[in-house]
């Protein structure tokens, strides 16, 4: 089928129960470019972009681009023939979708396929390996001995009288992940923020290449610890789509329950940290107390405080009995009123609201332009939630039966992101009670047999936004290529925009209102 009347790419629907994905192949770079233009015109987003080396199978290189459309996702591949020792090239999509910029640069660093023109600065490669050595090429071999020296990075400089720079990181002042922020300021006023990330780059995609799919689940579950369940589910969906496995209704309901528990745990923690960053330590103590209660029940029921490795290809690893489901309902009933009361305190606290309101704003038009997804996008008024119905889109099971109500707020500032988090906590508590009450009977795990050369794409609405994992098996039934995509890829640039009207001391608060993953982006 064709997704747009005048675009020649022919799509087929990915089989299975997961979120709708149409797969197609662009004949050449121009077809991809034209399709991207049509997606942009239709108000779609760039969901992910990655490259692969398929020369071992005699197929040259390959670029995968996933677009988010209203009805679902379009997964377009573009084959790139080998060009001697030159980097094969493809059209730069960052003019249409600014979010492409960093993904394209990372693809060049790892696979050695590049855009025609556009930003050619390295992204993930800092100085740890040679510029002409590409770790995801099949013939890359061991990394050559190389002197690991920090390289210069070409930050955009702001000129003018009184303008100066504040470099921050990679090691930050708090207990947070590493990254570099270059602030250009006049006095206390922020003029520009430019991020340099990649410090958490662990070469996970290379570790995944050649692994069996069970090992792959463990690796993907550690892309970003705070979203381990969302990643595990997206990966499992991708493997299941590739291998033709449909998880049981009970497994899907348990996965939803696990995902909503992860969402609530993170929102509780962040609501506490947001209070703390506005000097309201009471909020931190109260929300962290609730979060601790929450993760202790996880440990009791799933054997792990963050439920790592609970979602596996084929289903879930542990079952929950009636007593466990009752414990979940009881906890929801205890935590709901506690959060409600804290929300009233937050809402009525003048000092806190003074810091939250109008700070760090982005609007819906910018969110759309930057392909933003998830909580931060909904806080600008966009109704983007993979779990919820929207015109033309039916969410995959088990969400369809619950009528998930996406939380939105049109203000786009820190206050809006706080409000959306509160609303999502209440909605997730409602979902947890429904899931526990209507838990279908049946098996929790179905066998998965790898299918040679098969591929699949899994998409899950994590607490931060859309988590996406693409999987391709090799001829030997082992993983040939896995690309895990964290929503932080699209959200980091949004943070650069959000700070521009504020002062330097507001940055920690604005940053926390997004709470983006470094590891998820750097992989």
């Amino acid at each position, binding site marked *: 089928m064709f997704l747009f009347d005048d675009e020649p790419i022919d799509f087929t629907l990915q089989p299975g129960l997961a979120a709708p994905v149409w797969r197609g192949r662009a004949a050449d770079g121009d077809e991809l470019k034209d399709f991207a233009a049509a997606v942009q015109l239709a108000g779609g987003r760039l969901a992910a972009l990655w490259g692969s080396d398929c020369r071992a199978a005699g197929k040259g290189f390959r670029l995968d681009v996933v677009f988010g459309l209203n009805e679902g996702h379009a997964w377009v591949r573009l084959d790139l023939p080998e060009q001697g020792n030159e980097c094969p090239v493809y059209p730069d999509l960052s003019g249409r979708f600014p979010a492409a910029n960093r993904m394209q640069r990372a693809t060049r660093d790892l696979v050695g396929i590049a855009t025609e023109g556009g930003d050619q600065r390295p992204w*993930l490669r*800092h100085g*740890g*390996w040679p510029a002409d050595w590409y*770790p995801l090429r099949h013939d*890359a071999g*061991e*990394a050559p001995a190389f002197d*690991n*020296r*920090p390289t210069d990075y070409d930050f955009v400089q702001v000129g003018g009288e009184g303008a100066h720079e504040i470099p921050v990181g*990679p*090691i930050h*002042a*708090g*207990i*947070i*992940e*590493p990254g570099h922020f270059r602030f250009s300021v006049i006095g206390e006023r922020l003029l520009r923020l430019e991020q340099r990330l*990649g*410090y*958490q*780059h*662990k*070469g996970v995609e*290379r*570790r995944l290449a050649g692994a069996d799919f069970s*090992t792959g689940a*463990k*690796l993907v579950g*550690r*892309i*970003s*610890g*705070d979203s*381990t369940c969302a990643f595990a589910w997206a990966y499992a969906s991708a493997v299941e789509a590739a291998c033709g496995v449909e998880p049981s209704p009970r497994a899907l309901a348990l996965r939803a329950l696990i995902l909503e528990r992860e969402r609530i745990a993170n929102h509780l*923690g962040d609501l506490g940290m947001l209070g703390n960053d506005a000097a309201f330590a*009471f909020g931190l*103590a*109260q929300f*962290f*107390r609730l*979060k*601790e*209660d929450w993760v*202790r*029940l996880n*440990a*009791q029921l799933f054997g792990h*405080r*963050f439920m*790592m490795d609970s979602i596996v290809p084929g289903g879930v690893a542990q079952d929950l009995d009636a007593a466990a489901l009752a414990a979940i309902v009881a906890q929801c009933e205890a935590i709901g009123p506690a959060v409600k*009361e*804290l929300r*009233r*305190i937050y809402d*009525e*606290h003048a000092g806190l609201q003074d810091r939250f309101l109008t700070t760090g704003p982005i609007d819906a038009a910018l969110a759309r332009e930057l392909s933003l997804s998830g909580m931060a996008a909904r806080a600008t008024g966009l109704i983007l939630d993979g779990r919820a119905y929207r015109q033309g889109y039916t969410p995959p099971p088990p969400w369809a039966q619950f009528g998930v109500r996406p939380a939105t707020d049109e203000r786009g500032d820190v206050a809006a992101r706080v409000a959306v988090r509160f609303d999502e906590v209440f909605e997730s508590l409602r979902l947890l009670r429904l899931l526990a009450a209507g838990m279908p009977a049946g098996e929790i795990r179905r066998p998965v047999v790898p299918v040679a050369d098969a591929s699949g794409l899994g998409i899950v609405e994590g607490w931060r936004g859309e988590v996406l994992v693409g999987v391709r098996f090799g001829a030997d039934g082992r993983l040939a290529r896995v690309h895990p995509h964290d929503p932080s890829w699209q959200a980091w640039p949004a943070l650069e925009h959000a700070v521009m009207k504020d002062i330097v001391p507001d940055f920690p608060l604005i940053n926390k209102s997004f709470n983006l993953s*470094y*590891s998820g982006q750097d992989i």
Partner: protein
Amino acid sequence: MWSVLKHILKTGVVSEPAPDAGDAKRELDRLNDEILRILGRALTIREVDAGSCNACELEIHALNNPYYNLEGSGIKFVASPRHADMLLVTGPVTKNMENAVKIAYACTPDPKLVVAVGDCGCGCGEIGQLFGPNYATCGAVENVIPVDVRIPGCPPTPLALMQGILAAVRTR
């Protein structure tokens, strides 16, 4: 303001035994006593994330929640290695962080303690193996700077973290 005070009073001191905390809670009290006895003063920690997936950081954050109340035992996280007695390092140490970790170590005044956190940071267990040295990482923290104590786990629980921090203090 009144509602805040009311809420604080109503919540009370949760550092008392919680119903579901059980043995963990008693162990926590014992550790707190021991930390106070051994240190008799403050211990300052500089946390360095050298390449973790952030799960270790979530648990290190939890140390400051009212249940574990690490700061109540005189142990405090500080913003600069120059103010720190101890580096608490999560890993695997990435190539892109290798230099920063070495600089942070050099900036920490002697006598200093280094604690490696997590299976990746310790290079142990199945996960430590999966995240072993490759083109992008140096593997365990000890491959980059000297380590006094290792706290394994994926991630280690807050209680394991407290025990490890205490074990490090005992080495001096």
